[in-house]
């Protein structure tokens, strides 16, 4: 099966203060230590672990919105450590979709306009944009709410709009950071079903961080992190790698 993500011995540390790294008193905190991970196309993968375990850091690194201190990451065959900022931006724009814990919709745009945004920055023409937005909104069951602004949508609806926004440009991979953390059980279940359905129906690869047991139940593969280290990588069938 085609490999979408290859994380090779990646570490990420952060400076604790503003002193230069050469300064003797300079101290670092390690958010991720020698993490390795391979993800194939069509997988529905969860990164689980307690708060501060490095889940978001790992997702940020795979999503090219942060860079590793050591190691390298390949996304869809592209070595992201070799990319300049504009190249990373292009990769995110074309190959990746993002779903955030707090939805992060543009408040002055309607649901449809939010979904349209990734197509807009890709320079896709208006007719094609309209068609794909309608398709994406239909796939998340929000056609009737297309012209509502985010403040008039429920939390569950907002997160579905975010999912539609993440898939509308047909990315290779969708990264979701704690997508159900701000949702009640009903909406969380709906969202899990939606994401899982998209994974099953169109083979879209999902990597998401969570500590939501409801979400983990639907997941074929779970990578567990503790204190920045991968401590297990399990599939429905048992341990992996």
């Amino acid at each position, binding site marked *: 099966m085609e490999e979408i993500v290859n994380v090779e011995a990646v570490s990420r540390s952060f400076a604790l203060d503003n002193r230069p790294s050469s300064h003797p008193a300079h101290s670092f905190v390690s958010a991720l230590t020698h993490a390795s991970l391979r993800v194939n196309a069509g997988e529905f993968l969860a990164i689980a672990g307690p708060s501060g375990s490095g889940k978001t850091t790992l997702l940020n690194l795979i999503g090219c*919105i942060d860079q590793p201190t050591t190691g390298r990451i390949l996304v869809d065959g592209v070595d992201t450590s070799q990319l300049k900022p*504009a190249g990373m*931006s292009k*990769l*995110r724009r*074309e190959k990746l979709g993002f779903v955030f814990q707090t939805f992060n919709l*543009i408040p*002055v745009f309607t649901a449809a306009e939010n979904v349209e945004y990734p197509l*807009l*920055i890709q320079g896709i023409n208006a007719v094609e944009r309209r068609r794909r937005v309608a398709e994406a909104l239909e796939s998340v069951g929000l056609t009737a709410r297309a012209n509502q602004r985010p403040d008039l949508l429920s939390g569950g609806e907002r997160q579905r709009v975010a999912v539609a926004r993440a898939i509308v440009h047909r990315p290779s991979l969708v990264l979701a950071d704690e997508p159900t953390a701000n949702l009640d059980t009903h909406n969380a279940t709906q969202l899990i079903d939606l994401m899982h359905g998209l994974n099953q129906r169109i083979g879209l690869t999902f990597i998401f961080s969570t500590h939501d047991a409801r979400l983990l139940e639907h997941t074929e593969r779970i990578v567990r992190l503790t204190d920045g280290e991968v401590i297990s990588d399990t599939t429905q069938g048992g341990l992996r790698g």
Partner: protein
Amino acid sequence: MAKFLLLAFRNIFRNRRRTLMTLFMVGGGVAGLLLSGGYFAFMTHGLREDTINSGLGHLQIFTADHFNRDEVRVLDTGIDNWRQVAASVKTGSHVRGIAPRIDFYGMVSNGIKAAGFMGAAVDPEAEKSLGFVSRIETGRDLDIKPGGEVEALIGKELAKSMNVGVGDGLTVLAMTSDGALNGVDVEIVGIINSGAPERDARYLRITLPAAQRLLQSDRVTNLVVGLDATQNTDQAYLEMLPRLNGISQHLTLKKWIDLATYYKQVNTMFNGIFLFMGVIVFFMVLMSSVNTLLMSMFERTREIGTMLAMGTPRAWIIALFMVEATLLGLVGAVVGVIAGNLLGALLNSSGLHLPPPPGYNVPMPFKVRFVPVEMIGSSLLVIFSLAIASIVPAVRASRLKIAEALSHV
């Protein structure tokens, strides 16, 4: 592009109170500039037309010598064949009429006391036909009497100094063109109040034939040309030049602006004040807008982080902030132009007057003119100011670290 502009436009109205404050400031700046600029324009326009209609005319014809050397004797550098010159330019386009003039000086006496004067000799009919206003406070304008009697208008302060009024007589003494002293008795038919007391303390006006008899010369100092409208001055000037080349005497043609020294000084002063006010408004808008736009940027940190995470080019973020600021400036400018025009109209209908300026004794009407160039200029100034103000927040927004921006609370 349309969606991008839509996003920028909607962002302007996210925080209505802050936007209103900015619009109030930007609009206030524009309105202030329009009112002050409009007042200056009213003043300079009034001064321009007043200067032209009080006798300067739109064009004046002199001999070339008039500006090259001082006169040894009176009318030494005057125009000889002035009737021929007048006839040759009278048929030019936009020309309304020609008025011959003699500038001379001498002494006036009431038999007890004498005083110096600066005199002007005019053709009353020609002056009237050009609409030149004499500002006669009491009495009437000059008339050419066939019997040889000489009428005179004198300045209010000179009349006071000589203790004379309308109907009284004075003796006017001047040097003739041959260098002899000549005198003529005049009857005062009117008192002039030009508004400038210093001028009125030395001013005397008689008719052209009387002055020519007094000065023993058929020459005139200059010919004043009146046009149908001030804006046609340049065109009439260019058309008139070739006509003067056909005259045997070497003549020179001057536009009113070249002769209106006081007008130019006032205009320069007003332009300087207006420029200074423009600079103040520019920096006022700039400083307060930087703060407002930075606040807006901080409030939207997570949103900008999201946009960057989705792959929005950093240049787009810069453009978004700059377009937002420019749109804000545009809306503010429209508000300011509307407010400025409304306030201006209100002021114009109020009938307010300001105290007379130094050297004058007539109150100035407090009115404004609506000048399209000032509206456009003031609007562009604040739009430009806001665009400049947006650079710092725009660049800071574009340089946000995405991971940090996404976790911004």
